[in-house]
Structure formats: C-alpha cells, structure tokens
C-alpha cells in the first residue's frame, strides 16, 4: 500500500538539469508510466524515487511521510531492472528467497512466500535451475518474483522488457499487467516504448528534455496531446502535423490545400493565434479518409501493407508527408493522385510557435 508524492523534485548535474522541478502524485495501487526518449530524465526520476540517486531539490513523500533523504533499503520499494541482475551461482529458488533471508526471515515463512510467488508467475518447474540456463523471459519472471516476494509498498521498474525480443515483450507486457491487476501494488514503470506505455499505464507521464510534457490517461495523451512533442511521440505512426495559416475560417496549407475549421474550434483559435494566423493542423492517421471530395490532396509516396490494414503515405507538397490508415482494399500505386478528408471530430490544432495544443472549452 503506497502513495508516492513528488514535490518540485529536481536533479542537476553541475549547471545541467537532468530533471527539472517535477510535481507528481501517484495514487495507491496506481500503475504510472514514465515515458520518453533516451536522455529525457525518466530513469533519473525513477532512481530518485528509489533513493539510488539523491535529489538536488524538492521532496519525496511515501504515504505522506518524507523519505527524501532515506536510504533505498528504508523506502520499502522493490526495483526491477532491464538486466535481470540475478545471482548466477544461486538456483532460481535461492535467488527468489535471497531478499527475505537477508532480512533474517525464518525458513518456513520464506518457503511459504516463495511458494506463493512461483505460483503467481508460473515458474515452479524452474526452481532448481540456475538463471544462466533460462530464456530471457524466464529470467525476467524470476527477477519479478524476487521483487514480488518482498511484498514491497511499491514496485519501480526500469525498462524491464527492454532486453526481450518483440514477441516475448508483448506477452510479458500482458503478464506484468495481469500481475498488477491481481496485486494492485503501486507501480512506477519507465519505458521509451509508447506502445508499452499506452497498453500498461493507468496514467502516462510523458517527458522530454528533462521536463514533463503531459500527464494523463492513455486516452487523454492519445486524443488530446498537450503539445507537438506528445502528438508526434504517441502513436505509430505519430499524429500528422500539417503547417498552415488561418484565413477565412479555413486552414490554408503551404501546398495550397484547405481545411475548413470545425465550428467548436473557431472561437478558441481566434483567441490564441497571432495576427499572421499561423497554426498546425493535427490529425491521427485513422482520422483521415481517401475520398474524391476531400479538401486536401497529394500524391501517394508509398503504400504499406500492415497485415490487417494499409498505411498510405501521401506527399502533400512542401516537403510534408501525411500518413493515412485505411483498409486493405485501398492500396494505391506510388504516384497516384488522391484527395482526402479529415474527420472534424478528430482534428486538433497547435500553435507552431509555442508547440502548445489549442484547447476547446470542452477539454477543460
């Protein structure tokens, strides 16, 4: 049981900010993902929560009491790394039992706890083996078991699936999420993989350049990205972002296309754009549809079959390529001229100067 609170927590190396002052409250039983590209400060943040890294400023509270300067072992949190950090000379059972024995727990109690976690993670057949003989997935299960057996107040996970191949990563992702649903232990999970963040997180903290860009549920960060960085980073491919200028109630693109601004956006756009009316139109690949009466146009640059669907990459001129997700039937040869429409419900707007999303009243 744990709530974790970060109050203006920051980390500087010399004059350089690794993490700029950050406020975040993680609720009891919540699964929060710190997401961002390498060097964004996500791992440093996790290490500060664990106590493996000291803070340069701010406070960290665990269940309301300050732990900012407490030793990692006094914080009652279990860390799971990308590299499993198992003891190669010990058996799987000994590896899992190790943290309990180190606490001086009685043998019977240790056995009981070990039996429970091997049941949960379905690794009983592995107990006598050495970690070196196991597959990557099984090694990571053992590492999870060793974290779980302590019954810590919170789990801190640093790219635990990063070293696994794509297929295993997918199944382990579901296993960790199932484990979380069964245990409801507070979890802070670091990854650079937006798919993992979307699939697993109750909430996602998107970070870039030492700063939090957005905190929200997967639905929020996907549907209403706070800025251009989040819009690009979330989604595969990311959100289409087309530069243009507002004129006569429509977005005029650099390449001569036009897109009528949906009614709910007219007022907010008028209020926040400058005199030149420069803006960026954003839409997800699934929000666009090829249709002869579409108001935007381009030429097929490449067409990709993805199994269940097709992604059309359309060159709309001025060096901009937009991605349109469509069904398998609408695959067009390279060079085909196409027109497309964007679902007005799914259009988003950004201020290109600040990068910030334009908000409607309804978004709060």
């Amino acid at each position, binding site marked *: 049981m744990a709530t974790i609170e970060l109050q203006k927590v920051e980390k500087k190396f010399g004059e350089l900010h690794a993490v700029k002052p950050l406020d975040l409250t993680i609720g009891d039983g919540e699964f929060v993902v710190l997401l961002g590209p390498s060097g964004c400060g996500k791992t440093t943040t996790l290490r500060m929560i664990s106590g493996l890294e000291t803070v340069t400023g701010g406070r960290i509270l665990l269940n309301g009491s300050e732990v900012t300067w407490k030793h990692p072992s006094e914080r009652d949190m279990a860390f799971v790394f990308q590299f499993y950090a198992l003891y190669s000379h010990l058996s799987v059972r000994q590896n899992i039992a190790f943290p309990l024995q180190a606490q001086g727990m009685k043998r019977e109690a240790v056995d009981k706890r070990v039996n429970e976690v091997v049941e949960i993670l379905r690794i009983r057949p592995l107990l006598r083996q050495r970690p070196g003989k196991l597959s990557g997935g099984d090694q990571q299960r053992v590492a999870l078991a060793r974290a779980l057996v302590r019954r810590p107040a919170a789990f801190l996970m640093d790219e635990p699936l990063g070293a696994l191949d794509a297929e295993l990563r997918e199944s382990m*992702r*579901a296993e960790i999420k199932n484990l979380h649903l069964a245990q409801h232990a507070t979890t802070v999970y670091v990854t650079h*993989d937006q798919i993992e963040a*979307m*699939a697993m997180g109750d909430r996602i903290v998107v970070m870039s350049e030492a700063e939090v860009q957005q905190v929200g549920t997967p639905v929020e960060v996907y549907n209403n990205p706070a800025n251009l960085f989040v819009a690009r980073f979330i989604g595969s491919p990311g959100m289409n972002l087309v530069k243009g200028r507002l004129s006569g109630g429509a977005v005029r693109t650099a390449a001569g296309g036009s897109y009528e601004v949906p009614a709910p956006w007219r007022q907010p756009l008028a209020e926040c754009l400058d005199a030149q009316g420069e803006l960026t139109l954003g839409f*997800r690949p699934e929000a666009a549809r090829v249709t002869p009466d579409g108001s935007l146009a381009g030429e097929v640059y490449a067409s990709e079959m993805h199994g269940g669907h097709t992604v059309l990459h359309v060159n709309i001129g001025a060096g901009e*390529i937009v991605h349109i997700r469509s069904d398998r039937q609408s695959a067009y040869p390279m060079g085909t001229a196409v027109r497309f429409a964007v679902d007005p419900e799914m259009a988003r707007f950004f201020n290109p100067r600040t990068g910030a999303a334009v908000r409607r009243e309804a978004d709060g």
Partner: protein
Amino acid sequence: MSRVELNRISKRFPTVTALKEVSFGFEHGEFFVLLGPTGAGKTTTLRIVAGLEKQDSGTVSMDGQIVDQRTPAERDVAFVFQQYSLYPTMTVYDNLAFPLRSPLRKTAEPQIKTRVEAAAEKLRIAHLLKRKTAQLSGGEMQRVAIGRAIVREPRLFLMDEPLSNLDAKLREALRVELKHLQKTQGSTTLFVTHDQIEALTMADRIAVLSQGQVVQQGTPEDIYDRPATTFVAQLVGTPKINLLPASCQEREVRVQGSGICLPAPRLQLPETFLLGVRPEDIRPDPQGAFGAEVTLTEPLGVETILHLKAGELALLGLVPGMVSWRVGDRIRFSIVEDKLHFFGPDKRRIAKERT
C-alpha cells in the same frame, strides 16, 4: 539488369547445418525480403549471394550466368549492414565518393560530384555533405550508408537488417523512404530482416526461412492471408494469430472448451486440427453467437488488444479505437468466417477441398 536465382543452396558449418537446399529467385526491380527469426540462415544466404561465403552445394546465378566462381567485386553487389561502417573522420561527401574512387572504378571527379549530389538529394542528406560522419545521428548515418550503396549503381543491393539499430520512429520513417527510393530507382534488392512488419510493408515478395529452409514464398498478401504453416501464421501479424484446438463434427467446427462452433468449410479436415483466427477477425458484436469474459485490455490508441476468455479458452482480439470494457465484463462476439485458417496435425495449412 539482374535476375537472381538460388538453386538448392546448402551450407554446413562445423557444428550446424546452416542451409538446407534453399531455392528462390527474384526479378529485376523487385524488392525481395528474407524473413525469419535469429539463426534461421538469412545472413548466411545473403553472404553466399554476395560471394562473401561459399556454399557447399547448389548454385547462384545472375542473369542466367552461374556466378559461383566470381569474387564479390565481380558480382557487382552493394552491401548495407546493420552497423553503418562509415569512415568517421571523413566527411559525408568523401564517404559517399569512396566506392567510386576505388582503384577498380576510378571514376572522374566531376562525375563523382554529380553522382554523390544526386544520391544525397534522394536521401535528403544534401545539407550534411560537409559534415564528418561521427557528428551525425543514427538515422543520418544509415542514410549515408545507403547513399554509399546507391552511388555505385550496382546490379544488386543486399541489405542486412539495415534499420534494426534505429529507434522506432526513425525506423518507420526510413522504411517508407527506402521503399519509395527502391521503387523510383527500380533497383533490385534482397533485404534481410527478422521484423515481420518490415517484411510485410516493404516487400514485393517474401521468402520465410526457418532452420535453414524456405517454408513459404509469396507476396505479403500470400504470407499474411494464406500462411503455409503454423510457424508462418505466428510469425506475421501482431498480436499473434489465435491457434485453437478444434474438431469437426456434423459439418461443424467445434473449438475445444470454448462453446465456439462454426460451419465447416469445404475442406478435407482431419479429426482434430488447429483453427487459426487472426485477432482482427474476432469482432465484438452484441448479437454475436459467442460469449467471453474480458481478462485484460491493452489500449494502443488506434486500436485495443482484448484478452478474452471463452469458456476455458484464452483468445486475443483486436478492435478499432479505445474501448470502455473493463476487466471482468462479459461481451458477445462473432468470428469472420471467410478468414479462417486450418492447420493439420503436421502444422501445415489444409487446402484440399472435400469431395
């Protein structure tokens, strides 16, 4: 011009058989992908085509001529590796010019300039020509490496996982550009990857390798829509295809332990077999004939992976958009009947129709 043909290529290494009678061929202008897991023999095949490795038996021919006795240089192929292998102290320009300045080619400098600039333009690295390659990002370095291959205008491009060191966003972007470039240039390419999405999205045709053998050849549509074995079915598509133990009774396909029951296809089905259902062919539908419990949802934005339990059976579904179901909810669903796959006890696709 180049048509490449591999005829019954075998290769043994001291401890393992790397390739067993591998045969495939591709045409001028084709983008041909070798897809398979680590250790399948993809890179060995590529090296044999290049002449960097000698096969034990079988022949490689180009334009109808057997080339087994030719050196790599004489085969006129350009290699792009996973590692960029650029000269870090040279500028991008000099890296691109390097193959043209080799003693074998000795191209005149004005001609080199034209070709380097044309390649840089195509790969959008014209603005980087004066930089040292050590100062470039991973994506830029791989563009230079590809550029160095295209300046030579070789008869064949061999690419060994050239995108796998790049992060997801860059990989996506470069994948699209590489395909566009290949199609505009009409160059012949043999491309090796373990990534099924790269294979499906880029290839004109694919050969799937497993344990040194070709298990299926065909267009991406053939491989995805009509996988020849359960191995191929599971290799392509994400999330993975559902393979469900089933039997056929009274002209009905019954999936064990699930209550799922479908009309039998016009195929000669054995007593028991595996029914393959792609996750996108499981459709939540209030009027659906089958019921399941939601055990997990994984929202990915554009779509959501549904983990379902129908009776004793675990199933994966893939539905558009974000869904509001929660763990423990019961839903109804139907299965798209004309997209089913049937595999026999030998794991091969059942295609023979019943009489």
